């Protein structure tokens, strides 16, 4: 016999003056290989067509479907119901602006992050269409890709106590982004340039080592190691700045 799953889902439509934040209960029969993607869509199609949530790739690669699943931020599409208890509580990710029900605005947050961290390669070199590509060690390429795997789901931000207490804190995804450029030989920014971006309490020195980011990241990015790496690097830079000039 398959289980009857009880869903407690956060409901609030800010565009509807009558709407109040509350939890709503839905009951659904579990099927084989059911994921929250399948379950939520069934609830929407069969029970309440106004239910808002975000899915895109439904394959765990785009980062759209971050939500708080039984207390933990995670990707709904690659959460199998059979790994959950019979009662499932779903909340929208905190920190980000609520669009409605389970849907939040991660896009604006991350765009702002790109600007703050200047998330692009800084180089004086011009592209020459005639020339061969510049060579790069495959090992470098692989380690850059390792950090580029972030899907900007926002789970690490929503899970971070520091980010919840202080809205100017950059968060693990942003710090990881800086690390990605820091190890890229094509980016000509110096450590002092990076210090200007993250060498402060909004950046790496604001991180209190809560490590929820590391523990929830659905892509298993090596956030703990990157944060440590950045703290050491920026720590040393801060001393150099102190004594250097």
């Amino acid at each position, binding site marked *: 016999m398959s289980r009857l799953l009880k869903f407690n889902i956060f409901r609030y439509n800010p565009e509807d003056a009558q709407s109040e934040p509350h939890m709503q209960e839905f009951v659904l029969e579990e099927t084989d290989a059911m994921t929250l993607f399948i379950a939520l869509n069934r609830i929407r199609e069969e029970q309440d067509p106004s239910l808002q949530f975000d899915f895109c790739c439904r394959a765990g690669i785009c980062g759209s479907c971050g939500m708080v699943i039984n207390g933990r931020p995670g990707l709904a599409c690659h959460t199998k119901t059979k790994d959950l208890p019979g009662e499932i509580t779903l909340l929208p990710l905190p920190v980000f602006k609520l669009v409605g029900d389970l849907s939040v605005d991660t896009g604006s947050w991350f765009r702002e992050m790109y600007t*703050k961290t200047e998330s692009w390669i800084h180089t004086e070199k011009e592209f020459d269409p005639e020339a061969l590509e510049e060579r790069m060690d495959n090992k470098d390429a692989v380690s850059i890709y390792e950090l580029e795997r972030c899907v900007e789901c926002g789970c690490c931000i929503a*899970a971070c106590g520091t980010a*919840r*207490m202080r809205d100017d804190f950059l968060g693990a995804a942003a710090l990881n982004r800086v690390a990605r450029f820091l190890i890229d030989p094509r980016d000509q920014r110096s450590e002092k340039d990076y210090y200007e971006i993250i*060498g402060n309490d*909004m950046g790496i020195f604001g991180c209190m080592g809560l490590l929820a980011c590391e523990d929830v990241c659905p892509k298993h990015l090596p956030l703990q190691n990157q944060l440590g790496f950045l703290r*050491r690097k920026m720590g040393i830079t801060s*001393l150099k700045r102190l004594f250097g000039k």
Partner: protein
Amino acid sequence: MTIVYAPAGKSGKWDGVLDWLQMLSGASLILFMWCHMLLVSSVVISPDLMNAIAWFFEATFMAQVGGPLIFVVFLMHFVLAARKIPFRMDGQKAIWQHARMMHHGDTWLWVIQAVSAMCILVMGSIHMWVVLTDLPITAAKSAARIQGGFWAVFYLFLLPLAELHVGIGFYRIAVKWGFVKDKDRPRFKRGENIVTLMFIGIGLITLIRFLFLATN
């Protein structure tokens, strides 16, 4: 195209240095607490040993100078670390709500750290004041204090709070600065928990020993 390296945001010129100081103050307090443990717990082996160690510190003036110095580090650490503690209601509500929602060990550890810190601030200050204004340290004096009852209860609270704070602090420094990598984290954390429990155990034994020590 011109390339501008100056980023958005306020530059925190001193934030890096402050982070160093926070870590170093914490680390030196840890070292101190280990020494403190050696001193106080030596009573378990023999009150004479404790007296000898205390006398050594006294004779070399380390107690007279070191004591207040520790007090200064203690305050400095407080000032630095307190930057991270939310003193406004909404911040506190956020972190409590967050910790309860997440069921996440390391987040709870931080809450414990922050709460214990506030208790230590008050209790540690009183304790240091009392001990340092009543030098020299001897096993007998300590025993007398503890047998008075009030101090026994006082230490019964301060001891676990202090050890938890120190233990978590030690773990935190290691992971924050990347001395312990992700792969070693679970093992390191388990080790640290055991050490903390051991320290609390030794502290309790010490307290018991003081309770039954002759105070002539």
